[in-house]
C-alpha cells in the first residue's frame, strides 16, 4: 500500500535545486590564493604555500557545496578541482622550462653565434654553434632518410598485407619492444656495427644517423599503422571494384588519404630523436670544426655540444649551452609547426 503522502511526493519532483552562486569557485579561489600568500608571508616556502593553497581550495569548495547542493554537487566540484590541479601540475614544468631556456638562451643568439664554429683560426675570433646546428640537421636528416622508408613500408606490410598473421603479430610485438630500448643501447649497436665494418675508433655522422634511426623506426611504424587503420575499408573496396590492383590501391588511394597523419607522425618521431645525446657521444663523437661530410669524421650535434659545455661549467660555456638549447627548441618547434601545416594541406578536403 502506498500512502497518499508518498503518492504526492512522487508526483511533485522539484526540478530546481539549490545551487552555489556562479562566482563561488572564483570566490573560494581568491580566498585560497590569499591563504597561500599569508603562509608565504609567515615564512613557508613558495612550493609549500602553493600546495597548501590548492589543498585549501579542494577542501573548502566541496564542503561548501556539500552543505548547499548535496553530495552530487560536492563530488562534481571536487573532481573538477582535481582535474584543474592535475592540468596545472602538468603545465607548470613545461612553461617554466620554456621560460628558463628562452630567458637564458635567447640573449646569446646573434649573427656570430649562428655562423661561427668553435674552431678558431685567430686567438680573438668569436665562437658560435654553427658546426653543431649543421651536425644536428645532417645527422637527423640521415636518420629520417633511413627510418621513413623502412618504417612506412613496415607499417604498410602490417596493415595491408599481414593483417593478423603470425609474422605480423611478431613484428608488432618487436616494434613495441623497440619503442622502449634505451637510446644508449641504440648507440652501442651502431658503435658495434661500424666497428665491425670499418675497424676500431671509427666515428661519423652516418653512424649517429643509424643509431637514431633505430629509435625512430618504431615510432614511425606505430604512427603510420594508426593512420592506415583510419582509412575506411570502403575506399579500398571502391578502388578494387574499379579493377585496381592491390599495390596501386595502396599507393594511389590509401597512402594519399593517410598522408597528412603519416607526415605528422614522421615529424613527431624526428623531434623525438633530434634531442638525443648518449648514442651520438658514442658513434658520432664531438669536434670543434664544421664537418659537412656525414661519412667521414666526427660531427657535433646541439645536444652533445650542450652536454660538453655543461661539463666545462664556466660562465661563457654555460651561456653557450643555454643558447644552443634555445636553438634546439626553436628547431623542434619549427618542425612541429611544419608538420601541422603539411598535415592541413594534405588532409582530405571537404566542400
Amino acid at each position, binding site marked *: 500500500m502506498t500512502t497518499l503522502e508518498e503518492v504526492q511526493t512522487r508526483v511533485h519532483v522539484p526540478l530546481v535545486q539549490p545551487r552555489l552562486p556562479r562566482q563561488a569557485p572564483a570566490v573560494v579561489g581568491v580566498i585560497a590564493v590569499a591563504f597561500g600568500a599569508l603562509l608565504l608571508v609567515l615564512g613557508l616556502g613558495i612550493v609549500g604555500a602553493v600546495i597548501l593553497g590548492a589543498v585549501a581550495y579542494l577542501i573548502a569548495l566541496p564542503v561548501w557545496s556539500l552543505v548547499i547542493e548535496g553530495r552530487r554537487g560536492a563530488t562534481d566540484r571536487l573532481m573538477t578541482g582535481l582535474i584543474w590541479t592535475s592540468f596545472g601540475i602538468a603545465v607548470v614544468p613545461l612553461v617554466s622550462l620554456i621560460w628558463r631556456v628562452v630567458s637564458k638562451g635567447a640573449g646569446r643568439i646573434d649573427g656570430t653565434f649562428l655562423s661561427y664554429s668553435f674552431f678558431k683560426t685567430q686567438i680573438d675570433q668569436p665562437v658560435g654553434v654553427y658546426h653543431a646546428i649543421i651536425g644536428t640537421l645532417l645527422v637527423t636528416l640521415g636518420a629520417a632518410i633511413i627510418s621513413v622508408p623502412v618504417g612506412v613500408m613496415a607499417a604498410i606490410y602490417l596493415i595491408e598485407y599481414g*593483417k*593478423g598473421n603470425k609474422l605480423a603479430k611478431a613484428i608488432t610485438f618487436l616494434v613495441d619492444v623497440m619503442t622502449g630500448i634505451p637510446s644508449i643501447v641504440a648507440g652501442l649497436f651502431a658503435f658495434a656495427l661500424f666497428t665491425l665494418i670499418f675497424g676500431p675508433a671509427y666515428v661519423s655522422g652516418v653512424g649517429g644517423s643509424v643509431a637514431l634511426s633505430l629509435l625512430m623506426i618504431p615510432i614511425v611504424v606505430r604512427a603510420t599503422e594508426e593512420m592506415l587503420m583510419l582509412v*575506411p575499408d*570502403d*575506399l*579500398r*573496396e*571502391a*578502388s*578494387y*571494384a*574499379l*579493377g*585496381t*590492383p592491390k599495390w*596501386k*590501391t595502396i599507393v*594511389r*588511394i590509401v597512402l*594519399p*588519404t593517410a*598522408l597528412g597523419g603519416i607526415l605528422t607522425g614522421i615529424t613527431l618521431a624526428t623531434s623525438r630523436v633530434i634531442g638525443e645525446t648518449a648514442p651520438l657521444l658514442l658513434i658520432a663523437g664531438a669536434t670543434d670544426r664544421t664537418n659537412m661530410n656525414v661519412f667521414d669524421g666526427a660531427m657535433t650535434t646541439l645536444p652533445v655540444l650542450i652536454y660538453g659545455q655543461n661539463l666545462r661549467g664556466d660562465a661563457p660555456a654555460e651561456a653557450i649551452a643555454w643558447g644552443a638549447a634555445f636553438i634546439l627548441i626553436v628547431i623542434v618547434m619549427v618542425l612541429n609547426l611544419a608538420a601541422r601545416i603539411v598535415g592541413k594541406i594534405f588532409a*582530405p*578536403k*571537404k*566542400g
Partner: protein
Amino acid sequence: MAKSIDVSDVNIYYGDFLAVEGVNMTIRAGAVTAFIGPSGCGKSTFLRSLNRMHEVIPGARVEGKIVVDGQDLYEPGVDPVAVRRQVGMVFQRPNPFPTMSIYDNVLAGLRLNAGKMKKSAADDIVEKSLRGANLWNEVKERLNKPGMGLSGGQQQRLCIARAIAVEPQILLMDEPCSALDPISTSAIEDLIHELKDEFTIVIVTHNMQQAARVSDDTGFFNLKATGEPGHLVEFNPTKKMFANPDDPSTEAYISGRFG
C-alpha cells in the same frame, strides 16, 4: 556490351562457415535483376561473389560456377582484377575518394589502370559519365572541387559515374539507396532505368517497392532457419513475383506477413 551471368550450384563460405548454399540462376543481359530478402540471408554476399569482391575478406571462398561471357569467373588462373574491370560495383554508402576532386574521382578507374590519357579525351569521358549518372548539370561548374563536398545523393551518383566511366559490362549495386533520402533515391532509380540499355544491372535492395519499380527479374533469398545458410527461394520475372509468386514464403515476405 551488356553480358548475361549464368550461376550454377554456387556455395559461398567464410572460412568453414557456409553462408550461401546452392544458388542457380541466369541473370539476363541488358535487364535489371533485383535481390530481396531479410537481413543476413546472404544476398549481399552473393552479389559480392559476382565480381570476386567477396574474397577481399580473409578466408572467404566460393564453390560452383559463375559464367560471364562464356568464362567461369572462378576458374584457376582467372585474375580477380580483370574480373572487376568487367563487373563494376556501387556500394551501400557513397565512397568517393576523399583526396580527389569530382573530376579526378570520375577518372579514377581509368587513371589508376589505363595510365595517361589526353586532356580532351579525359574531359569527354568525365562529361559522358557524369551525364550518364545524371549529375553533369549539378556539378559542371565545380568539377575541381572535392568529391566529398557533394550531398549524399550526389556522392552516390558520382560513385555510379566513376563505376560506368571504366565501361564495365555488368554493374552491381549493393543497396545503393539505403543511405539516401527519397528524392535522391528517385533520381537513382531513374538512372537505373536509363543505364540498363548499356549495362546488365544487379541490385540488392531492402525496399520491396524499389525492387518492383526498377527490376525486370527478382530473386528472393531467405534463411532456412537461424544459423543455417542462406539460399535462393525463388527467381522469377518481377511482375510474376509480386503478383503470383510460386513459393508461399515469398508471398509472406512480400506482403509483410513474414515469420
